């Protein structure tokens, strides 16, 4: 395989990985308009990429607290640093159903999220990537543990 | 000349899919059976030339049907159409006299190729 063929193959691999990974990936521009929407986001939200692209994040998902989210995201745009949110702060960013709808005990998917800056060639940041993790299992175990601890202390 | 074709499958949908997958240009008279026992009764009446046979069925499954056909020396060609695609399943049905094994869901192109191969349908020049 030539170098350019290899690069194309690698590119296809990466695209496949983005689509299949059990993690949500969303790219947003300065106006919080959606630029990329991967398979996880599509499957859990029921919103297809062609329906999501170009839409404002907060219009499409009213469950996201706009001012809260913007405070985190603006620092990423401005300071070029990452921001993290954990399910203890807010159980979820997107209101998705629990990944185990039959045997699961949670009513929704608990989420951690990371916001990373995507840099231009000149180092400025016009886009950010939102990474969404399903942490329902550990959140539920934590809850159980706290319950047991409380019982032991009474 | 019309060919008498028997489609044997316990699933109504599978029977429909199978009959739809037959080439449009091929003149056939299609009869359906819901299990092997029904198929054998129909074959006994005579005239059937080709059977598409499922394997997993109640009452009498595909293997038993093939055995019955062989035992009674029935003059019919059998193509097995099955979701059970394990190597052993293919081998077993070939040993029992099936001329071909086609996996489900059926593919029209594959059916056409098999029919051409066995001279039941003409090739491209038709």
């Amino acid at each position, binding site marked *: 395989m030539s170098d350019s063929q290899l690069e194309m193959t690698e590119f296809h691999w990466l695209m496949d990985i983005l*689509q*299949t990974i*059990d993690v949500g990936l969303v790219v947003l521009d300065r106006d919080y308009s959606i630029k990329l929407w991967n*398979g*996880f986001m*599509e*499957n*859990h939200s*029921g919103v297809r990429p062609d329906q999501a692209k170009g839409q404002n994040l907060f219009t499409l998902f009213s469950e996201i607290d706009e001012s809260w989210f913007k405070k985190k995201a603006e620092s990423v745009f401005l300071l070029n640093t990452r921001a993290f949110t954990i399910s203890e702060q807010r159980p979820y960013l997107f209101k998705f*159903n*629990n*990944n*185990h*709808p*039959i*045997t*699961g*005990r949670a*009513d929704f998917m608990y989420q951690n999220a990371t916001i990373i800056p995507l840099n231009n060639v000149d180092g400025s940041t016009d886009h950010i990537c939102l990474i969404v993790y*399903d942490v329902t*299992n550990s959140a539920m175990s934590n809850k159980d543990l706290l319950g047991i601890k409380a019982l032991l202390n009474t | 000349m019309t060919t008498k074709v028997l489609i044997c499958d*316990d*699933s*109504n*949908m*599978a029977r*429909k*899919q199978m009959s739809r997958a037959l080439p449009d240009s091929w003149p056939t008279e299609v009869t359906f059976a819901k299990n092997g026992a029904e198929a054998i009764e129909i074959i006994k009446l005579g005239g059937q030339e080709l059977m598409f046979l499922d394997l*997993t*069925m*109640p009452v009498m499954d595909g293997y038993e049907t093939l055995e019955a056909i062989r035992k009674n020396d029935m003059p019919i060609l059998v193509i097995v159409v*099955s*979701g*059970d*695609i*394990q*190597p*052993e*399943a293919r081998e077993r049905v070939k040993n029992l006299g099936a001329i071909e094994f086609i*996996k*489900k*869901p059926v593919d029209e192109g594959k059916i056409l190729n098999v029919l051409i191969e066995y001279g039941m349908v003409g090739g491209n020049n038709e």
Partner: protein
Amino acid sequence: MSEIIALTEDERDCYQEITNVAMGQAADRLARLLGVYVVLPIPNVNIIERNEFKMTIKSLENAPTVSAVCQGFIGAGIAGEALLIFNDSSFSDIAQLLKYSKELNPKEELEMLMDVANVLNGACIQGIGQQLDINFSQSHPIILGQHRPISELLDEKHVTWQRTMAIEINYTIKDHNINCDLLLLFTEESVIHMNRLISFLLED
């Protein structure tokens, strides 16, 4: 809103046939992994109420204890879980086929359970997805329990659903004492979507 889901005979037949094809693909992979022949049954498709769920699970296995793994899947408005229930008496035969040591420790048992679950769950979910033209997301598997009575697998207090479509597949392996059940469970909402999706397959 609460449209009660039901299946017509044609719809049930359609799910049975779709499952039949998907489980055939799964069995083929397991057969190649273990070098055996997997006996394929006719799958059972039913709508079950939440209070019937325990009964359904209980009727699957008469073993005193079982181990179970479940894995969620979602895509195109269809969500559910694949639940693999493993008869504990199957472990020694599986170990032999997968060439694990004779004396199994719990870690190895977990490894085997996951190996088999990956093959069966994955192939079945993908197989159904392929036929409906859906690329399902699959979550990480969860152990529901190891070596537990089957009735303890599900925490009934926390059940949030009313009805589910359950597809039961009982896999046995020729010449070996191996028995496991794969239960595909779909949420009510999903069944409404799926009935719409399969309607084109049922057209005359």
